[in-house]
């Protein structure tokens, strides 16, 4: 079981963040929500590990 990584893990974080914003550019709120949902599912499948996913949900909810 993988431990969820909560320390910096992305090379060139500014580039990633810019890509994320660019993906939403020109989309309506509805289209953006749908994109986010698809992105979550694609990423979740890549992670795969249920334990790590559960920790990710907990980490995200803690700031709700």
């Amino acid at each position, binding site marked *: 079981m993988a431990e969820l990584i909560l320390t910096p893990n992305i090379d060139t974080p500014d580039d990633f963040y810019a890509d994320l914003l660019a993906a939403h550019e020109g989309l309506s709120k509805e289209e953006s*929500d*749908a994109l986010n*949902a*698809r992105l*979550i*599912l*694609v990423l979740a*499948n890549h992670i795969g590990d249920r334990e790590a996913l559960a920790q990710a949900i907990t980490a995200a909810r803690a700031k709700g």
Partner: protein
Amino acid sequence: MNKIFETPLYPYERSPDQDAPAPVRHPVVVIGAGPVGLVAAIDLAQDDVPVVVLDDNDKVSFGSRAICFAKRPLEILDRLGCGQEMVEKGVKWDVGKVFFDTRKVYEFNLLPEEGHQFPAFINLQQYYFEEYLVRRVRDLQDAGKPIEIRGGNKVEAIGTHDDHVKLEVATPEGAYTLEADWLIACDGAGSPTRRMLGLDFVGRVFEDNFLIADVVMEADFPTERWFWFDPPFNRGQSALLHKQPDGVWRIDLQLGWDIDKEEEKKPENVIPRLKAMLGEDVEFELEWVSIYTFQCRRMEKFRHGRVIFAGDAAHQVSPFGARGANSGVQDSDNLVWKLKLVMQGKAPDALLDSYDVERIHGADENILNSTRSTDFITPKSEMSRILRDAVLDLAEEHEFARPLVNSGRLSVPCTYDGSPLNTADALEDGPARTRPGAPCPDAPLGDGFLLPKLAGKFTLLTIDAEAPDHFEEAGIEVERLALSVKDDKTLALKQRYLGVAPSAVYLIRPDQHVAARRESWNENIFRAAVRRATGQE
């Protein structure tokens, strides 16, 4: 032509009990001649336990209702002498298609595992299912077995006592009193028995309505299960098309909550909906229309002294996954062998408490699965709809998203993990699917199959292991079934029961669930396992 569900199959007839000077006591009374009540009664009577089935009606179920029967109930029905005819009449299907809006997002094949006598599923109208059971009851009666169905007998009051149950029964010719040592209540989701005893029934009511229609048509739709999310002909809702025998198609259309049920049921409102779905020029005839709302809930306990609840009377699920009638048949399968042993004095009364443990485990599993399907099909919030739609959008292109699509997780039997009747697993690296508590998977055996050889009694299954051919422990007879992988041409037996082990000995319960297993025979351990499996340890 009259449909079978319009013909009285067990019309009211006066019973001598109605003229008896004192209430007549019967060993077992079953309330409800639906699928579960009839299955329980047949199982008892086959073994010469006298049983009376009371039903306030006199016909089989009106309309198709439960239409999808899974492998495990068919195996149980085979033990009761009517599995084959159901399969012969039923429609077998393996392919399902899922549509989202106007697109087919993917198609699946159940790819049923080889080496089983019965198919993964058949579609068969509930009225045929019940008709075959009634026919089986008549055959048993002709063979002198102690079983009767009393139509037009409505139970109006129940008195519970330590050693019996008293019933006030209304008939067209007035009321009479009956007594029973044991009462099995199979009187459906609205169970009057449950109400009369003032028992709880808690859970979740889903705010939704579904229109179900049975349509007779000569259409060239293939024999597949088609499920639509948000189709143009039923915007924002779901739809299901499934084939039944006799050119009857089952259509389920989700309608939402805020509707006028009586209006929606009128043919002038139903027919345009169906035309939008099937095409303007498809000729069809409407056989039956109904609207239902469903709940996912169960009783806190299924056993209340001498009254035992089974089927929808004890638990209710959403229809997605065909877990209603299928689980009710498994309730009966679990209960009847235990009740027989208790009635014969071979097992303590406490054995019946394991029915509660095991079938509540099954009911919870079914409720969990069907609730999840319902939450996917009918998203309860804006975000759950966004996520659901994202899954469907991705499923069209990406294989990974397809297992997340949930249009019903089809009924599979429950493994009674943690049951007090199980002996700890002692077959090292044995296949998980045959661990203690699991239902035995079928396997080819020469010209036949394994399961019919395990029917209705305790069996010691040995695979390349020595053991006595017969033994008796605490009044329980155990017969050995000796097999060898040398005769296992398909290797199904080895894969399903041995894994990497060179040999195995299994103690198998009368309901074909595994009670204990290890690599070789050990007298003390298997004797203890028999006591444990019968509530004597």
